[in-house]
């Protein structure tokens, strides 16, 4: 189940492929071009960085960045849910106002911005960024959301612990199983497992009276409280109640569903130079570790990160950037099954 295979790496997305290459890089390196960009950025307004994490989570990340680049000012503006990052940039650009300079989120949103000519496309290598984590000229892999099985240790006997995602549709979990109401986890798994198998799993999960949650944080809390026993959640959101002392445990699925989270630089932002420096820094071990420490979301491509340990030796499953149309089609289809399934009955 957990054996690392060549096939998994080849089938996985940008991050899975990046893990070996990037792990060998030095922790931090400053090229001449990077120094020049940093000098230019220091003379400009603050780098407005927008993503879904909270101010509280982002403060230590920005503090760490400012230790390295004290002259580049950073202003964080939260985009709750992270689903209107691109929409806000389009609106602000159309109105002639400076949008945020740096965004971190789903690659689909950044593809829309790329099509509108609103993101910086460049060769990131001169800034010291490994090509393996820049699958496209406008994207830098920053972290990842990893699908995991979660269960309540007090409610689930050892013999009943789910070994893989299909175990969740066992009738013994009827009404006691939970899921994120969105389907990125399912879509990631579909890359290796196949569309039909995952469609079948999703339908059976709904039929098994799965409780649907708007957030995987909430899913993890409800499993911790014992309201439901098991669920398909995300690694970094499971850690929150786990670290608070909740009787939770998690296990990897096989294959391991991975959704890479990227950063992109907005060309019409007030300080795209500073945003490039910051995006490049987030791709270093120093930046990635600071980001993981602040947000809980780590970069599996960075050797030594907690998230890399989770991924290590496992078969991963993720659509590549070039397969985005397939990703979007499946996401729409599976989302509909999850959110409509029981109402439709």
């Amino acid at each position: 189940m957990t054996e690392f295979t060549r096939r998994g790496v080849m089938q996985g997305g940008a991050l899975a492929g990046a893990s070996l290459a990037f792990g060998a890089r030095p922790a931090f390196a400053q090229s001449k071009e990077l120094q020049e960009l940093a000098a230019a950025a220091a003379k400009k307004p603050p780098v407005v960085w927008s993503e879904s994490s909270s101010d509280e989570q982002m403060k230590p990340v920005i503090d760490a960045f400012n230790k390295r680049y004290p002259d580049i000012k950073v202003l964080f503006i939260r985009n709750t849910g992270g689903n209107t990052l691109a929409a806000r940039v389009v609106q602000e650009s159309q109105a002639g106002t400076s949008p945020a300079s740096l965004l971190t989120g789903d690659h689909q949103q950044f593809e829309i911005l790329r099509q509108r000519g609103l993101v910086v496309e460049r060769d990131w290598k001169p800034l010291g960024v490994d090509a393996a984590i820049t699958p496209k000229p406008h994207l830098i892999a920053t972290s990842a959301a990893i699908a995991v099985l979660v269960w309540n240790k007090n409610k689930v006997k050892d013999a009943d612990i789910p070994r893989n995602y299909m175990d969740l549709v066992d009738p013994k979990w009827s009404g006691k199983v939970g899921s994120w109401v969105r389907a990125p986890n399912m879509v990631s798994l579909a890359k290796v497992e196949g569309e039909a198998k995952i469609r079948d799993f999703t339908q059976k999960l709904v039929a098994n009276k799965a409780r649907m949650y708007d957030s995987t944080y909430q899913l993890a809390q409800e499993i911790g409280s014992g309201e439901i026993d098991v669920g398909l959640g995300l690694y970094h959101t499971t850690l929150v109640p786990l670290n608070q002392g909740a009787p939770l445990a998690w296990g990897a699925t096989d294959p391991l569903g991975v959704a890479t989270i990227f950063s992109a630089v907005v060309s019409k932002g007030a300080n795209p130079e500073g945003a490039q420096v910051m995006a490049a820094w987030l791709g270093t071990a120093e930046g990635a570790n600071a980001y993981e420490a602040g947000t809980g979301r780590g970069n599996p491509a960075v050797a030594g990160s907690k998230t890399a340990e989770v991924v290590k030796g496992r078969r991963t499953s993720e659509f590549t950037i070039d397969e985005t149309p397939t990703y979007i089609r499946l996401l729409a289809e599976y989302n509909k099954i999850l959110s409509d399934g029981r109402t439709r009955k």
Partner: protein
Amino acid sequence: MPGIDGLRQRAGRYLPALLFAPLLWLVFVPVAILIVSAFKPTGFLFDPGYTADHVRDVWLTGEIWRLIWQSLIFAAGSSVLALFAGGFLAWLTERTDVPGAGAMRAAMLLPMAMPPFLLAIGWIMLASPRTGALNAAAMNWFGLSFAPFNIYSMGGMIFVEALALTPSAYLIMAPAFRMIDANLEEAALMAGASRWQVLTRIILPVMTPAIAGTAIYLVVISLVVFDVPGTIGIPAGIKLLATHVYDLLNHAPTGLPDYGPIGAIAMGMMLTLVVLSLVYQRMMKRAGRFVTVTGKASRARAFPLGGARKLLAWGVWLFLAVTVAAPLLALAWTSLLPWQMPLNAESFAQFTLANHGLFLRDPALLKAIWHSLVIAVVASTFTAVLALLTSWAVVRAKAPGAALMDILAFLPLAFPGVLIATALIYVYLTVKPFPVYGTIWIITIAHATVYLSYASRVTNASVAQMHPELEEAARMNGASWLRTMFRIVAPLALPALVAVWIWIFAHSLRELGAALILQGADNKTVPTLLFAYWTQGQPTKTAAVGVWMVIVLVALIAIGQGVQRWASQRQAES
């Protein structure tokens, strides 16, 4: 000197023109943006091209009608319950001799201090099937093998939404009950009518505008509200129209909000609202029947409840204990836990003040409190004044364009706050002379727009109940229109105005959807802080913020209640 007709003519000539400007700006412009978005291929206002695809796709599929049906069940259920509960309690406290009516009035407003989002969380803690405290207690005490309550159901959603709506229903109807002319009752009693006949043939018909306005308000608000359907409905797998709009906004697979379909749905909601507005206006045209506040002194006679007095009083307190105290206690209990766990003896042993300590030490808190207070004070004051002037122009002056003006004032109700906020982003991004984008003022404008509907329903009912003879008398004595408004209309409408002010103040302080959409670098509010904790998977910290928020709101509402009592006494004396 012109008589009342001359007064109406002059005011009718100028006031609507003056009022149209803010109404058009606050309501028409954002609504127009939403509608235009429905016809844009990408949903973005300034993108090229037009298409009817979104409207066709949304309204010609079976899905929308299924969602509407589900939403109507939810809206009808919660509205009927809230209307009955709010109306009955308003009648009890305003027109009967129930003991402790003053305390009940104050207590009835307390649920308003609890955002529906927190109310839903409180009820999840109490009545979720496997860990709910009420279920555990019922199963232990009565030896049941099953959980008797399931909050994750349509019934559970209706129940919690009805609780959230009851204070609004009460607040709209209580001033109307209070203002009923006692002479009508006296005359009926003198003519030999029974108390029951007075209630059914005098009180209820006189209350028709207030009841109709309240019913329409409740139905529409429960059709668009997201808090309860989002918190309880999503886990339960029950999808409503509001949840669907939320999905389109936040869960679109392309990564961009589906503004086109959202605009198309908003159009349907808007048309429904226009029809409801016209129905409401037709009812108001017969407002002569409902004129009850005259220049003649009258003193309301309390309906004697007889032997049922104490029973009903206990019933009210039990209702308040169950609906207000129980979820608040559940929330307080949760705020003392290290992580979310069942509310039982085991969790009692885990009590910690850490969540409260962390929250009170949060440096962002003071600033967020200040922002929230400024927004709430300005939005509630501005909206109350605008609503009164609009009501006067619509109900009393019956000025040209009055019907349109009333529809404009009512229209924002059709749109969830998040949609209004989305439209406002466009408005204030493009209108450079008003640099409010990213500041607390754009949230203030959003709240003024969203809450104008409620305010205008209350002030409409209040103005409808005033006899024109009072203004006529002032005018006969040489008072100008402005002076008449200040000395006659405003004082008579003061209880309703204060009620509106308190309602908007409380709702603005707890409003989340628009504040989140409009969040910039320096305009965070208390609810956005609360939501930050919630979305980080910290329900216990969320509960701690919620508890403090409710405590502060209760104190502020109590102060507002004192002012309202003073205003009522002043009105009675005058």
